[in-house]
């Protein structure tokens, strides 16, 4: 059909638009010359540069701490919330409230949190970023675990309770193993979002310990340098890998 051929061409161009710039960046990161158009041969030179950059390694560590901490808390809170929303409180208003952080423009949330931390006189640090990231990560974990729960066969739990298992044991032996893939998928997603999140981190970070996106922002503002290409390639690869694993665990169905 002719229409389908046009659609195929259109879709191909859209994917080229989405992936072209990224692929170009990856290619340039291996370019020995460091110039965007002169190919100086394949080289890992810019990657080696990164390894000796202390500021950068520290920022990467900060990001891992924030992402790890916020994921841990949101995994627990988000899972409990998903169970609560799915089984007890089916309520439109509550749903809207919980998913509010996903729709509020991030700059609004960022200035609100900055004002709040300043108001309660809590010094800005990695802890304030972590606290802030939990606010939106709860929603992401809850959304994915909830999808998993909607396929859940309730009779399994009922059988366990009827056979005399206490609720806590039923939860850990029946419910948890069945929804675990959802929790893992949600946590991986939360971890990735937190690792890459810039706007809220930018406003809630202390001056001395930036996360990686904050550092990248300041590097990029000073212009294009070849080592940023290498750094960008590493960060994109890690995110892509985590997201692909999350997808495999059934993380895509939580949205739309």
């Amino acid at each position, binding site marked *: 059909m002719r229409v*389908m051929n046009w659609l195929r061409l*259109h*879709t191909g161009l*859209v994917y080229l*638009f*989405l992936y072209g*710039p*990224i692929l*170009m*960046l990856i290619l340039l990161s291996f370019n020995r010359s460091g110039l*965007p*158009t002169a190919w100086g041969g394949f080289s890992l030179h810019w990657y080696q540069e990164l390894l000796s950059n202390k500021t950068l390694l520290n920022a990467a560590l900060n990001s891992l701490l924030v992402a790890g901490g916020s994921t841990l808390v949101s995994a627990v*809170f988000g899972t*409990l*919330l998903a*169970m*609560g*929303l799915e089984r*007890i409180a089916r309520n439109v208003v509550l749903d809207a409230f*919980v998913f*509010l*952080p996903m*729709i509020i*423009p*991030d*700059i*609004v949330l960022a*200035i*609100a949190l*900055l*004002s*709040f931390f300043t108001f309660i006189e809590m010094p800005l640090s990695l802890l304030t970023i972590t*606290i802030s990231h*939990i*606010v939106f990560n*709860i929603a992401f974990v809850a959304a994915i675990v909830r999808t998993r729960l909607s396929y859940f066969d309730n009779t399994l*739990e*009922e059988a366990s309770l009827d056979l005399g298992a206490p*609720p806590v044991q*039923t*939860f850990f032996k029946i*419910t948890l193993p069945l929804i675990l893939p959802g929790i893992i998928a949600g946590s991986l997603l939360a971890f*990735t*979002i937190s690792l*890459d999140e*810039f*706007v809220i981190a930018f*406003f809630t970070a202390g001056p001395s310990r930036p996360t990686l996106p904050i550092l*990248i922002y300041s590097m*990029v*503002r000073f212009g*294009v340098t070849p080592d*940023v290409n290498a750094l*960008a390639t590493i*960060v*994109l690869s890690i995110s892509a890998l985590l*997201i*692909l694993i999350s997808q495999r665990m059934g993380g*895509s169905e939580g949205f*739309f």
Partner: protein
Amino acid sequence: MKKLVSPLVLLGPALTWLGIFLVLPLALIFAYSFFQRGAFGQIVPQLTLQNYSRLFNPTVLKVFLNSLRIASLVTGLALLLGYPTAYFITQQSTRWKNTLLVMVILPFWTSYLIRTYAWIVLLNREGVLSRLLIALGLSREPISFLYNDTAIFIGLLYGYLPFMVLPLYSSIERLNPELREASFDLGATPLKTFFQVTLPLTIRGVVTGAIFVFVPSLGNFFVPELLGGGQRFMIGNMINSQFLKARDWPYGSAMAFGVMAIVLLLLLFQAWVTRRTEQA
């Protein structure tokens, strides 16, 4: 069903967290937006509506309107690019469908900052595009394609296009193919079928996708900063500079609530569309 755990344990932790770190902060800046700024950037708790009336001074109004214009254009363009793409994906075999969808989702969860940087590499004076034009003999001097509205457009479109494709995909996917076949059988042209059957029945996906693109485009501040050179202000830049440079937090808060008012109107519109299509 027997209650496994009490609702308090399930809902308590998350709702408490959101109460403290979402509701209170938003309430705080809402209060700030009616307060005054002191001489040293401190907040003076004296009630005033001045911060809101200052939103209507010509410079600020111009920035608001310009941001609305840019966000609308980005949304329109995303719809034009996204709809045929989403439609094409729904027509593929399950395996291809999944692959193509994952490929849309993938960039959407990776660092937007880095993806914006990729465009700096492409568009700057010494960048790939400029060098390419020279190499092809189409230009003699290096040209910068950055620091204009088009660069901001491209950056926002690039970042938020996946937000458009996903909801469109799921609403087209849910469409019963027999409806389209019936339209064809009754002699309608493909174009007529599209505008009279397919598009009206997927309008919810269109509205959801449009909001998902419009809202973050409106509030974004680093794309205009990095690709627009910080010269071409959007609302996000203005809020950013009120908070971090001018230190007029009450004024910045009022701007934020200006944005929130626009978002709220859009969400009400979405709810209205949802209700109408449910009745139909």
